């Protein structure tokens, strides 16, 4: 159980790192759009908003 929590913590750190640092270079073109925003815009903004969520979850798992 402890190792599972540790794995989850590592995943929650790596996920936003990859989503923000690597994925944007593979996003191409201007669709699909969300609220009019092109993919590169909504993807980076979405993950900027999700980063605190990931870090809060890491913190929760750490405190247990």
């Amino acid at each position: 159980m402890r190792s599972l929590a540790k794995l989850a913590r590592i995943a929650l750190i790596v996920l936003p790192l990859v989503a923000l640092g690597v994925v944007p270079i593979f996003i191409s073109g201007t669709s699909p759009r969300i609220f009019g925003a092109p993919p590169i815009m909504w993807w980076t903004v979405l993950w900027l908003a999700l980063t605190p969520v990931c870090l809060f979850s890491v913190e929760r798992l750490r405190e247990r």
Partner: protein
Amino acid sequence: MPLPVVMVGATVLATIAFALFAVRRFGNDPTQFIVGGRSFGTLLLWVLMCGELFTTFSLLGIAGGVYSRGAEIYYPIAAVGIAYIVAYLYLPPLWRYAKEHNLLTLADFFATRYGSKRFGAVVALLSAFIESLGLLVYLTGLQIVLRMAGLGALGSTQAVLIAFGLITLFVFTAGLRGMAWASVIKDVLMFGTILTVGLWLPIAFFGSPAAMLDRAIAARPHDFTIAAWTAGNGKLWFVTTVILNAVGFFQASAVAATYAAKSERIVRRNVMLLPLYTLSLVPVYFAGYTASLVLPGLRGPQADSAYLIVLREHFPLALLGAVCASGALAALIPSAARLLAAASQLMKNVAVDLLGVSREGAVQTWLTRIFIMLVASVALLLWLFLKASLVDLLLFLFNGAVQFTPGVVFGLFWKRASLASVSIGLAIGECAALSLTVHPLPLAGLSPGFVALALNVATAVVLTFALPKVPLVKSGGSS
């Protein structure tokens, strides 16, 4: 006098007055002056960090990039997000180490962890030099803002001198604690004006931000895909620039702000909450795209202020005044932070630790104040007389500042990392950063600062393995 200029002046004066009024008297203790007595709670620390980290670059530089560049201009959003993840991993242990060893400055970490006052002094001198270059960037940003507010070339130079003089006297008086209170006004004003302008501009011209983005995509369909791998601003550039900016996001002044936290828990919570303020960058993108549709064809520094020109020509002057006022604070508060970071390192790590000037707290605080005046004067003189020939050095600013981070991270997490390996790594990183700035190489699209950082890290790692183990000076436990 034009209305926006009056608004800028009134805002700067009101902010300083508010902060001086709000700040508690704290005597002449250097710990109070430089790191706020390590007493900041979540909210005050958050406000201070936002105040330091969001500068005229957020307000003008990003908008200019949106105006004139392609998809690579999304790098600040990605980099800031990652910066907080990196910070989450190393700032809490750094705070703990700083508390244990009573550190005041970034250079203190190097001096204490690697057991060499001389190394600390070298880091302090280098860091103070880099922080002063940062001041020149803000001075130029401030002048752009004041010119947009309606001042001419001469008038805006004089206004920059006055504003910078005021902020220098302010940090001279109120230290880090005063800066935190001044940041309250700066953060609220900046957030409010960015949101208003970023939404109002597209709504006024196109009906809604979505409709504006429709037009922007139709007009520049290729500006939403990052270019080929090795292009000048292609995929490799994007990834390496994001890494570079994320690693270098917390510089000497932000490290001092971290030390100011009351507890490690507050550092953690603060880093988790900072991305929320970064969401305020999104309206800047809206403003940049709107300006590129309404007023196309501008180049260079004019592109940076394109949306301000649109504001001036189509909207009530008070709105331009509000943007210029927050722009002025976005230059002045980070300037104060850099002044304090440079001066405190010169005081603590050069004058006191290396030259043994004084062990007395009150003397140290006054010495910091004297260095604040000194650094500010040198920066102003350089800016006034050598601005044009300093462009190359300014590019060095960020690439040079980022080279300190590996030494901090290795120092915290790798017992074996030693003075020799880290200092040689730092020296190679700085030399590479400087030479790549002066003689740019193609590098297959890699960001030059990243190459320098990679050389720094590689040197430190290889040397740490190659050199014989040296026992740590005093780090508790057996080594």
